[in-house]
Structures are given as structure tokens and as C-alpha cells.
């Protein structure tokens, strides 16, 4: 009985979140962006998420000309679904509203090639590829083991090694990609204007100034300060309250 109650509760919560999402969509269509944001945020507060939810939230903030929350939510949508073209497009629109223009210094060399290869799939996808190749390995083995013709046997034997190799590669890729994902701590500047200091002290000299909506990567933490790096490799210390981390 108790279990049933839980299930009912859970299901009703899902439905409730779903209706809140749709309510937000309705508000958005009627151009009541503040209500739409409130509605979407409610869904997030209830512990539910989806790439589409963050995307819609970003859109609503964009329409309200709130740059930092818009970019934050687009980035969040892209974290869940990196290939979302709509989110990429709208993120570009939002980034054009920011004050800072930060160049992206292209990384070169072998590590960049490796990273590009890793980025082809999300680490969960890599994991599924590994599982798939493991299953395929079994099939190849069966084929090899039970085939009577030598040619077929050889083909299956060769296939076994190829599949095993691909499995090992995808497992290590998944682990490396997850490691990359965890070590990367992107954040968005929420403060309207914030000086980035050369040292983690309020009295330290300003290295440069950032405006809201700028994307930074957190490298280190010290008390109330975060060491950040920009996409153009500039580094400095920023106060914790000025930024909001994506993960």
C-alpha cells in the first residue's frame, strides 16, 4: 500500500513537472516571459531537468534581455545535449549581447587531435559503444568457434580482435572523456561588472574586467576566490559570488 502511494506520488510529480513545463511554454507564447521563467524555474526546483527545459528557460531570459542567465541556461542545455543545433544558434545570439568579446585561442597539436576524437561522442555514448562492442565480440567468438569452414573461421577470428580493440579504445575514451568532463568547470559571470584580480585579495590590482555573460573556466578555489581562465588563456582571480558554475 505504501509502495503504491509512493508510485502514485512519483508519477503525479512527473505529471506535475510536465504541466509546469507546458504552462511555461504557454506563457512564452503569450510573451509573458517573467511568468514563463517562473514556471520553468519551478520545474528545475523540483529536481527535474532536460535539455529542452534549459533551452526554453534560456530563450525566456533572452527575451527579457538578461544575458547572463540566458547564456547560463543555453550552456546547460548544451551540456545535456551537446549537438543541439537550436541551443547553439541561440547561444550565439545571446553571446552577441554580451559586452566582452573574448577570443578563442585555438589549441593545436597532438592533444588537441585526441581531444577532438574524444569529443565526437559523449562519455555515455562511449560507454554504450564499449558495451556494444563487447556484445559483438561474443558474436564473433561464437562465429569463430562454431564455423566449420576455415575462411569463415579466419574472418571471425580477425573480427574478434578488431572488436576487442574497439572495445578497449571506447572504454578508455569513455573514461578519459568523463575525466575531461569532470575536470572542466565552466562558469558564467553573473555580476554586471566584475574586476578580475591578479591575486586572491580585494586589494590586489585588477588584471582585467569582465562583464556579465562571459564564460570562464574555474581552475582553482581558495576561500571566497576562484582562479579562472578565459578562452583566450588569460587567468586571474574572481570572487565566488560573481560567477555561477554550470556543473
Amino acid at each position: 500500500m505504501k509502495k503504491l502511494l509512493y508510485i502514485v506520488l512519483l508519477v503525479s510529480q512527473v505529471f506535475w513537472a510536465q504541466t509546469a513545463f507546458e504552462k511555461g511554454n504557454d506563457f512564452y507564447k503569450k510573451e509573458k516571459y517573467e511568468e514563463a521563467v517562473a514556471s520553468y524555474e519551478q520545474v528545475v526546483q523540483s529536481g527535474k531537468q532536460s535539455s529542452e527545459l534549459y533551452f526554453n528557460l534560456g530563450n525566456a531570459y533572452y527575451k527579457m534581455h538578461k544575458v547572463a542567465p540566458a547564456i547560463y541556461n543555453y550552456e546547460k542545455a548544451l551540456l545535456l545535449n551537446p549537438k543541439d543545433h537550436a541551443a547553439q544558434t541561440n547561444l550565439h545570439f545571446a553571446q552577441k549581447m554580451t559586452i566582452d568579446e573574448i577570443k578563442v585561442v585555438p589549441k593545436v597539436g597532438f592533444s588537441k587531435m585526441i581531444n577532438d576524437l574524444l569529443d565526437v561522442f559523449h562519455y555515455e555514448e562511449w560507454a554504450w559503444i564499449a558495451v556494444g562492442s563487447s556484445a559483438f565480440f561474443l558474436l564473433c567468438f561464437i562465429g569463430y568457434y562454431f564455423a566449420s569452414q576455415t575462411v569463415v573461421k579466419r574472418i571471425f577470428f580477425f573480427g574478434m580482435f578488431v572488436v576487442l580493440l574497439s572495445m578497449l579504445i571506447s572504454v578508455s575514451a569513455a573514461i578519459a572523456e568523463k575525466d575531461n568532463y569532470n575536470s572542466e568547470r565552466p562558469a558564467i559571470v553573473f555580476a554586471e561588472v566584475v574586476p578580475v584580480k591578479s591575486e586572491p585579495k580585494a586589494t590586489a590590482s585588477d588584471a582585467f574586467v569582465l562583464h556579465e555573460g562571459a564564460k570562464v573556466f574555474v581552475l582553482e578555489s581558495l576561500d571566497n576566490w576562484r582562479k579562472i581562465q578565459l578562452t583566450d588563456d588569460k587567468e586571474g582571480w574572481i570572487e565566488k559570488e560573481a560567477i555561477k558554475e554550470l556543473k
Partner: protein
Amino acid sequence: MNRVIFLIVLCFQGLFAQVQFEATVSKNTLGINERLRVDFTMNEDGDNFSPPAFEGFRVVGGPNQAVSYSWINGKKSFNKSYSYFLMPLKKGPAIIKPASIEIDGKIYKTNPVKVTVTNAVQEEVNPYYPQQKTGEGIHLVAEISKTNPYINEPITVVYKLYVSNTASVRNWREMASPKYNDFWSQNIDIKKLVVENGKYNGEDYRYVVLRKTVLYPQKAGKLEIEPLSLDIEVDLPTGRRDFFGRMEYASGNKTVSAGAKSINVRSLPEAGKPIDFTGAVGDFDFKVTPSKTTLKAGESLNLVVSVSGKGNLKLFNLPKPVVPSALEMYDPEHKEKVTTPLSGMQGEVSDTYAIIPQYKGNYLIKPMVFSYFDLNANKYKTINSPEIMINVMDGPSPTSGDNQVAAVPGKQNVVSNDQFQFIKLKTNLTAIHQKGFLGSGLFYSLLIAPFLIIPIIVLARKKKEAIDGDVVGNKIRQSNKLAKRFLSEANKQMGNKEAFYVAMEKALHNFLKAKLHIETSEMSKENIQELLLSRKATPETVQNFLGLMDSCEFARYTPASVGTMQQDYDKAVTVISGLEKQITN
């Protein structure tokens, strides 16, 4: 030829003439209120005269150059002097250091001169020389509008020259113009001096406004306004009358000074000071106006940031607009339309920014804030400009690259213009804190499971092969199967006595036919026994077989229960399978 003679003469001059360069002073002891005249004289012309620093003195006149050149009885004499008039600054001994000059490539120096400055001496009264009385009739006054202003609050200094009715001024000359350090100053030109009547110390005087200056203090604390000194040529009555009974005047020079004034500048209050305060003090209006708000990408618009009103307009920076990176903003053109009457600067200063949008879309220029200190209300005031929405109609969208395909003439080029994407209507919500698949138990088990299945497959096959290889066991299983096949009909007829035993007999016959390759006609008991034994069947089994055949025959005529039928059936199975094993083909 002439030149050679001249040169020779010059050489002789050089040989015979004794160069003299010396310093002489008008007196060696003087009162502090007296002037000292120093002459540096030489008897040859020289270059690069450099006077000493005159420490302890102020140069009030000079250098005056005097050159005399004469031929007397065929003898040439040359004399050149530089004269300075010095005013001692302090009492005590003072040294006039050597001056130097270069004559014919050699540097000559004067001897240092020692001078003693004593207390002020009483000047002897000369009734015909009215200088000593001039102080009574002429005063230079500096009027300062406010002595405790705030920083950047305008104050005015007006210099007035009061002249008594008995004295008259012929001319004046500024000796020292005040330098207004730590002030921003603006002189107000006075085109025509107007003589007015006024009172000075209760007496009737005429006065003239010589100079008006507006000052904006730039530093808090006690600031000094340097004095203005005038050298005035005055006419004073000598007290004598001329032939016609008119007052006789004597002219003389007089130095008047307005005296140094100090003012106490207050710094602006810290309480309630806005963060973006840039030092504007006065009463202002702040405006931000774009020339247009709807335009195409690549067109330019002007954004005018202007501050108008009264106050230190030239002395603060205008706030800078902050624009999104999609709008390219160029350095501003600064314009000042400021007039400075005595009440302080007024007018308008403005910065005009040219802004060129790069991409289509709506962009927001953030509200700008201008803060100033209102002197009347004695507090800070802040003006916010409204936010400005720039609507860029046409142009590349932010996502498109710059490699736009050129349109073929006469054809419409379909450019995939990325538009701002509408919200998504469907979603699949999941819990935020969901464990990933990678690293979960499911992942590992799915990854490992195929490898665990492999040994199972191998084992299963091995088992099968082992079973296949077991010859005896296989035979048993085979013969059992065979017997069962032969007896299947009998099994079906279980319970029906007649049919059962007919089927049983038929089965046994069939078995013999298959095994021994004999016909039914040859099936006598002896024949069967012989044949079976010759095929190495055990006598016991053969006996059982024959017994079974007998019982089949008996059973037709005797009643039999289901129990015996079952017994016979089982026996048949064992016998047939036994024979199957034993018989060799």
C-alpha cells in the same frame, strides 16, 4: 688684404689688452627694504654670459646691458656691463656668487662679493620725492567669493585697485602674475576698465576692477592664492602749488601687492558618495540620445552622451556607454560648449559615439548613470538614462560565418539565415541527480557478461563432444530408443489385451527382421536361438526373448491383466535393448 691687417690688429689687441671681468655692488651693507645693484663689467666682448643664482635675493630688475666703445687719442677702450637689481629676502650675510663669461675661448669668472643685509633702514625723507607716501593712497585688494568651498566648487577672485581721490595712477605693470597651483582657473577678460566709486576703510575711493578669475579648487586642504603685484606709476600731490595755484604733482613708482590669501577647501562628503562619481559638482542634466534605434547592420548610428547645466563641466569625465560586442563602438568625439561667466562654467559637454552594428538582432544599451554633487542641496544626486534598445533589421546573423555565397545575378540567393530558434514544445524530464551509465554496475556487467558467456559456450561444446565420444553409452541410448520405437505401437495398445500382444509380437518380429535379416517364415524358436547365440548374445537374454515370444502366444488365449501387460512391456524394452547391445552385425 684688409682682412689680414684686421686679423693682425686683432692679434695685437689680444696680446696687449688685459682682460678684466669683475662684479661690483652698489653697497656692501644694505637694509632689507633697500635694493642692491650688481654690475658685472668686462673690457672685452664675450659670449655665454651666465649670471649666478643670486641666492637670498630676488631679481627685481635686469639684466640691463650697457656697452660703451670709444677711441681716445688713438687708444681704444671697451666696456660692457650687465646690471641686476636685487631685493634681499632675508637678513644676514649673503654672497653673490661668481658669474662667468667666455672671452676668446677662455672662461673668466668674477670674484664672489660679500654683502650684509641689515634691518630695514629709515629712508631719508625727500619732500620732492613722494614715494614714501604713496602707500596711503593706493590699495590693491583681492576679493574672494568664498573661503571654504568644496572641491570643484567655483570661487571667484576679483582684483580691485583702489585709488584715493587725491592720488592718481598713470600706468601700471604687472610684476608677478599669480599662478594658481591646485586650481583650475579661468580669467575673465575685462575689455574696458570702468572707474567706479566705492569705500575703502570708510573713506571714499575710486576703484577699478583689474582682473576677474574663476577658480575651481582641485585639492582639499589649505590652498594659497599667490599675490598679484603691480608696479604702479603714480602722481601724488607734493603739497606745493604752481604759479596758477594748481596743485603740483610729483610722479613716482610704487609696488602694491594684494597679499597672499589662503582658502580652506573642503573635500566632498564621503557619506552617500555614489561609486560611479567622477567629480562632477554643480547642477546638471544628463541625456543619452541615439540618432536612431532601427537600422541595418553596417549602418552607423550616433549616440550622444551629454551633460548640460552649471558646474565644473570641463573637469570631469562623461560616463562611457557599455554596448554588446555585436555593436562596434568607436572612440567618441568630445564637444564642449562652455562659457565661463563669473558665476562659473555653464553650457554643455557631450561625447558622440559612432556605433556600427555587426549582426542582426535586438541589442540593449544598458542604462547609464551620471552622479554629481549638488551644491545647493548639499548632497549627491544621480541621474539614470533610460535603457536604449537597438533594433538591427538586416544583416548577417550571429551564427553565420563571413563566407557568404555571392548571388548569381538575376537569381535570388537562398541563404540559410539562422534565425533565433523558438522554444521546444516537448521534453522528457529526468531527475537532475541521475547516476550516469558509465561506471554503473549495469555498465560493468554488460561489459563483462559476454566474456563470461564465452567459457560457458566452450564448456557446453566440450560437454557435447564428450557425450558424442562416449560409444557404449551412445549405443545403449540408441538401442533403447530403437526398442521404444518398435514397441511404440504396443505401448499405444496398453490395456487392450488382444491388440497389445499382437503389436508386441509384431514388434519382436520386426526387431528380428531388422537385426538378423530373417523372414517371418524362418522364425522358429530354434532358429532364432541359434542365430542370436551365433551373434554373441548372452544365453540369458536369448532365453528372456524366447520367453517373451512364448508369453505373447499364450496371452492370446489366457486372460491377462493390465499389470502383466506392463510387466511384459518393460521386459520387452530391456530385452530388446539388451540384444541391441550384445548383437554384433
